[in-house]
């Protein structure tokens, strides 16, 4: 009886979690000109609408560019920091870690708003560069946290053994450390990419005719328009996230990555 109730609870829980997503996906295939559920018929017209409306396509390209660059920059900055801070014994290392992770505890809208004023003040202004810098600030903690978690689980003896056997620092990193922390990097990069790609509160403040990202254009679109193309875009975003997760699972195994996260 207990097992049955537990199964029932699990099914109900997943139904509750997945139902809104399923509704959005189904609405994206509606033949109607408005978003309503159940749908009167099936059609791909709203996916076609995405390609037909240039700001959606331009914003999607910008979003991918920003997400890729912010992820690369986050890895470049966070991986060395994680490697050092994991092994550091001094008291200030904790302080530095907390500082680097602090964007996670600050509302994104505050980061966006303050970055707008700061970057304008130092002359970078509303630009693609400003967007990438601010997204990197928001994405860096994800890479730092996952790489730190994995690296902490790696016994220092492995790296010490490599050093004793004559490997230099770079060789130790390349041959010993990097293969061991790779699931952490993959998990961090994945979270980083998805966080940047879906980000609205930061991108909102740096939107312009040249730098608008997809969430900003979607928000502006639904201010006055109600067609299901937003549901179609959401379905595509969901598909992208699923593809990323499946690829990461294939390469590294989702279990290793979730341990890292």
């Amino acid at each position, binding site marked *: 009886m207990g097992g049955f109730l537990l199964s029932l609870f699990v099914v109900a829980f997943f139904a509750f979690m997945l139902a809104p997503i399923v509704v959005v996906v189904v609405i994206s295939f509606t033949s109607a000109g408005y978003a309503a559920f159940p749908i009167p018929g099936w059609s791909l017209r709203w996916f076609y609408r995405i390609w037909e409306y240039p*700001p959606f396509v331009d914003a999607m390209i910008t979003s991918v560019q920003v997400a890729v660059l912010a992820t690369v920059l986050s890895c470049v900055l966070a991986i060395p920091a994680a490697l050092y801070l994991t092994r550091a014994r001094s008291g200030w290392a904790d302080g530095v870690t907390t500082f680097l992770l602090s964007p996670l505890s600050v509302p994104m809208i505050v980061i966006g708003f303050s970055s707008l*004023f700061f970057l304008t003040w130092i002359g970078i202004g509303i630009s693609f560069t400003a967007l990438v810098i601010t997204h990197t600030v928001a994405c860096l903690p994800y890479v730092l946290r996952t790489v730190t978690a994995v690296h902490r689980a790696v016994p220092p003896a492995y790296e010490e053994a490599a050093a004793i056997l004559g490997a230099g620092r770079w060789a130790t990193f390349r041959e010993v450390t990097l293969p061991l922390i790779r699931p952490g990097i993959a998990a961090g990069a994945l979270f980083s990419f998805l966080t940047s790609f879906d980000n609205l509160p930061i991108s909102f403040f740096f939107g312009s005719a040249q730098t608008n990202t997809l969430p900003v254009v979607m928000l502006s679109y*639904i201010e006055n328009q*109600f067609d299901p193309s937003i549901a179609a875009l959401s379905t595509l975003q969901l598909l992208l996230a699923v593809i990323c997760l499946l690829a990461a699972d294939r390469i590294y195994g989702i279990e290793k990555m979730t341990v890292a996260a």
Partner: protein
Amino acid sequence: MTMLTRRRLLQTGAGAGLMLAGASRMAMGQARTLNVTAYGGVWETTIRSCFVAPFEAKTGAKATVSLGSPAQWLAQVEASPAKPPLDVLIMTPDLAITAAQADRMQDFTVEKIPNLAKIPRQFTDACLGKGTYFDYGVAGITYNKKTVPNPPKSFAEFVDRVAAGDFVASVPSITYAVTPIMLIWAMAQALGGSVENVDPFFDAMKKMKKNLLFWSGPNDFFNHLASGEADLGIYFDGRTWNHYDEGATWIDFVNPKEGGALAAVAIQIPKNADPLAFAYLNEVLDAQNQTRFAEVMNYAVTNEDVVYSAKLKPRITPWQQAAFPPYEKIAAVRNGWVDRWNREIGR
């Protein structure tokens, strides 16, 4: 041999002068790019075809259209007031007042914008003379004709019949930015209250609470009606007609007899913006351009010379039949209303 008469000399001279002036203006324009704003979707494409295209044709300048939201644009101007990244802002009426009070916007005069003479003075006064309205709708009662054959004609009747359980109503939640105006103030005013006294509104909400749903965005409202969860609600006329034209022919709208709240779109020019922005503004306020804009958007426009088509005319609620919100006064008490809503209604 051609005789060079005085008349011909004057004509030639004037022609050459005009060509030179035109060429010079074109050359000046070509070097300049104006940054204007729009909401996404049909709004943006209509702004491009109705206002940007004639502006570019007349001045030879270019205009880029930035998609986004008023709060975003105002923040961007605030961050760089000496060199604003945007030259023309689309604003909500309350933000337009905030920007005007902060002295971030330029004065609107007929000398700078000749078509301003055709805009009712009230719309420019509502922006403290530093902007004007160019488009508006009315928040009234939208209903499903299938389930509400005899809709309420007034806010008072709406409250009584929802409280009696005749209908389930969908009203905006406090998370929707315009709720304090389109619902709290409009209903309080209609039920005998005022900006200073919104008790009639909160009393009405108590009476109706068993038969109320709340929408946090326009799509929610439409879904409430389309799914049958609600029969009617407080919504905008233009949006109602957009749904109708998209195939939801069961939907209809009535402006309550007390007058639904006017929901306008303001337009402003930041200080230190490109002076060419006034030429763009003149196109935005032009009767012919506004007529084309209204026909696509299903919303009323503000130039008095605009003549609506036979299809659009019956859909338009003249602004004189709407309730004109005192935005400045509301801004002063708005936080108190939100706090009271959270305590008494909570959704």
